């Protein structure tokens, strides 16, 4: 007869090496933190002084503005380009392909300078009938393309070319049967893309898309070539004047860390949202996990104390 184990006490598996590892890691973290805090050459006082200075905040807002505008416009345009590329129309396919080809094969720096100096290449921009003198309207290029416009144009078009490929990749990862089922139900093409395919493609798109957005946050610093005062350009101007190079670079770096951290939190929750239906039960959020950890450990502690 089988032994009855029901009266035995269950002892949870122990992981002593995890504790050793934790101690080593904690020591390392402490050492780094200590050196950061005590080495006077980091000049934390200067960092603190400039961190929330008006000019730095203005630069930060410009960075956020450029990232948001060109990020959103870039991904919207990228989505349209991806759909064009996957469409049945040879015209749309080649237009989309050519767009990506041009903007991925020219340096962003060059694109930016070309947009800004469009006035040098074409003095006036006009709408009319080609090869005749008929003009409906005409405008000086330099009044049309400001620093801001050149920056947004350059970043958006470049971003669109890259995000088109990311979105196309995501769409290709969705099972062909989904499209067939939607087509068989008579669901119109645009709705098929936005309601059926895109939400499923999102799971594949999001990690890379957030890579792009985070890259863009720092990538906006390239607009220094237009003397556009976003965050990085601003701190450069300041340290050229004050010679406090390292602490001012730290100011910019810390702000980039803050933005990226906030974006990472967004990424976590957006990814979780789109995993709806793809997993049977949604995983716990970190907050829920923490609450559960403390709840179960509290129970374990009270149980131990009672014994």
């Amino acid at each position, binding site marked *: 007869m089988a032994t009855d184990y029901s009266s035995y006490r269950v002892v949870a598996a122990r992981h002593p090496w995890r504790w050793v590892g934790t101690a080593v890691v904690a020591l390392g973290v402490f050492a780094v933190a200590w050196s950061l805090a005590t080495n006077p050459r980091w000049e934390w006082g200067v960092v603190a002084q400039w961190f929330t200075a008006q000019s730095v905040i203005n630069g930060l807002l410009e960075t956020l503005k450029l990232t948001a505008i060109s990020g959103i416009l870039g991904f919207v345009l990228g989505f349209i380009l991806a759909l064009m590329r996957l469409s049945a129309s040879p015209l749309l396919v080649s237009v989309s392909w050519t767009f990506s080809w041009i903007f991925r094969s020219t340096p962003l720096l060059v694109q930016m300078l070309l947009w800004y100096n469009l006035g040098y290449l074409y003095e006036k921009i006009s709408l009319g009938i080609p090869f005749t003198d008929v003009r409906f309207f005409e405008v000086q290029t330099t009044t049309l393309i400001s620093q801001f416009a050149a920056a947004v144009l350059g970043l958006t078009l470049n971003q669109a070319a890259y995000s088109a490929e990311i979105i196309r990749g995501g769409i290709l990862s969705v*099972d062909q*049967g*989904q499209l*067939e*089922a*939607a*087509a*068989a*139900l*008579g*669901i*119109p*093409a645009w*709705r098929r893309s936005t*309601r*059926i395919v895109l*939400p*499923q493609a999102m799971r594949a798109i999001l990690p890379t898309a957030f890579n792009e957005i985070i890259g863009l946050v720092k990538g906006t610093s390239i607009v220094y070539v237009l003397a556009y005062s976003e965050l990085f350009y601003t701190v450069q101007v300041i340290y050229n004047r004050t010679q406090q190079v390292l602490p001012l670079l730290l100011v910019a770096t810390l702000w980039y860390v803050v933005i990226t951290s906030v974006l990472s939190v967004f990424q976590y929750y957006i990814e979780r949202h*789109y995993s*709806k*239906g*793809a*997993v*049977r039960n949604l995983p716990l959020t970190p907050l829920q996990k923490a609450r559960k950890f403390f709840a179960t450990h509290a129970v374990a502690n009270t149980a131990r104390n009672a014994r």
Partner: protein
Amino acid sequence: MSTATTSAPATATDPVTTPSTRGLVEITKVRKSFGATEVLKGVSLTVEPGGVAVIVGPSGSGKSTLLRTINHLEKVDGGFISIDGNLVGYEVRGNRLHELRGKEILKQRTEIGMVFQNFNLFPHLTALENVSEAPVVAQGCSKDEARRRGLELLDRVGLKGRADAYPRQLSGGQQQRVAIARALALDPKILLFDEPTSALDPELVNEVLDVIRELAKSGTTLLIVTHEMGFARDVADTVVFMDQGQIVEQGSPEHIFTNPQEPRTRSFFSKVLEPAFNI
């Protein structure tokens, strides 16, 4: 628009009163090739309104492809398909056939429901959202109306109370029944079943077949590709035996199952019938 959508649920929920005057399928000398392989070699088949045609045959015989040409998921290379006298995928103008474009094809498809072997439910939408999506966007039904009908249809396929479940939270049989409800939501003239039970565990097959049996009495024209011979015999008006891209023989279930004339039909059934009839 509103009259069309309000009159629809009455016929969808009340199978007895549905007149079998719509859903005539006429397939004439249809040919289709994939690359160098010709998978349909001039297939002709007529299914009367309200009829139930079950298509059987070895795999690779072109059964599924034939089904998919009916709602233009596959474009035919030759021949014609018409539904109630209207050509699928083309419009007759004078003595020319004009190829239809996206929108018109979609409109034709709303008259034809299709149920797939792998269900193809939309995994990010709940059962109810799966069922009520097409009536809203393809037929202009109001959201409330689509929801009400969706719940009714889920009830009809025995899934009352599972409306808010996501497909992955349902068993295979339940998923396929949601897929059937989804196909019914457009109140189609014709329903196409492409091996609806082939991806199911044996014990789940019957719950799906029972739903289809009910539909067979409803006056909707059904075309079913299946390997379930007992079910075919039970539900079909006409059994069609296909092999190598051609219809070899067709007739009543009694005729095809007990007294097939063609040697190819006989050899096929001698291989598949024994196990099916043990059930």
